[in-house]
């Protein structure tokens, strides 16, 4: 069964996109924790955990795709002997485990980010984690379930941030909404990703959304410095 829809010619480039996404998400985690240490605002820490989980999900995709490279090399060099079958079998287990964690961490991270602006905390967290596990497991056979669930979470997060944008009218919040919409678009494309070229377009859209997030983090740190410079005058 084909688990990852990367066309052969794109294998390698898509790993770089996932690696780039991992680094950007890691940067958000770093900034969230750094800011939490100063302000002791726990919600900053939770935001950081949300980003960290999605970063770990990206890392597990990178590892899975490296395993695919390894898989291709082994089957090409050894041929159709029994050893190849065993290696591929063990690689299947790696695929399943890392893809499970990729899906589980992404959905959990998105759920945490979705819950953040809501001040009232209800006791449904364990129930949601249970559904995320079920979704992640089911996605092994029906890959689109994961992308559909991620799309729903992204839509809910976007709705929250549109509300926040209506209150604060900050360009930075607007940029974050654009990045979320692009991520949502990429999920729609991933649902149709059994067509190779759509998978490539989806990865490109995902790359653009993470570049948008990089612009956002640069603006946030630049604006902080600009504010200081304004007060120096």
């Amino acid at each position: 069964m084909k688990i990852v829809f990367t066309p052969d010619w794109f294998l390698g480039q898509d790993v770089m996109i996932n690696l780039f996404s991992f680094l950007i998400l890691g940067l958000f985690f770093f900034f969230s924790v750094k800011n939490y240490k100063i302000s002791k605002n726990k919600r900053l820490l939770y935001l950081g955990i949300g980003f960290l989980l999605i970063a770990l999900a990206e890392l597990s995709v990178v590892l899975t795709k490296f395993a695919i490279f390894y898989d291709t090399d082994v089957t090409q060099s050894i041929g159709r002997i029994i050893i190849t079958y065993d290696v591929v079998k063990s690689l299947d287990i790696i695929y399943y485990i890392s893809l499970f964690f990729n899906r589980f961490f992404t959905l959990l991270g998105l759920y945490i980010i979705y819950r953040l602006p809501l001040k009232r905390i209800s006791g449904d967290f364990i129930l949601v984690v249970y559904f995320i596990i079920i979704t992640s497991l089911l996605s092994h056979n029906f890959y689109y379930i994961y992308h559909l669930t991620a799309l729903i979470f992204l839509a809910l997060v976007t709705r929250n941030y549109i509300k926040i944008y209506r209150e604060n009218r900050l360009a930075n919040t607007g940029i974050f909404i654009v990045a979320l919409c692009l991520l949502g678009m990429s999920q729609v494309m991933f649902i149709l990703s059994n067509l190779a070229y759509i998978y490539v377009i989806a990865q490109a859209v995902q790359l653009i959304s993470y570049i948008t997030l990089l612009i956002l983090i640069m603006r946030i740190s630049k604006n902080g410095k600009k504010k200081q410079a304004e007060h120096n005058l």
Partner: protein
Amino acid sequence: MERRNRLNIIYDILKVIKAKGEIKKTHIMYQANLAHNQMKGYLNELYEKGFIENTGGKRPLIGITKKGADFFQKYAQVREFEKTFGL
């Protein structure tokens, strides 16, 4: 209106001092919207932490130190981050 927390009040005090360079205590009180006793408490804390210093000699003027300016910059970034994500 949302209540300011301790760090936001410190940020506002440092902002007022930074904007003026040197400032009298009473001006801080009015511009940072603080009661006299409240301001006294915060200023003592800022002196202890080395964020502000007396700059006026016999005249009671207050200025910001390098340590205070560094904290101000870091906290400005925290506020920008918090506002962006509605936290």
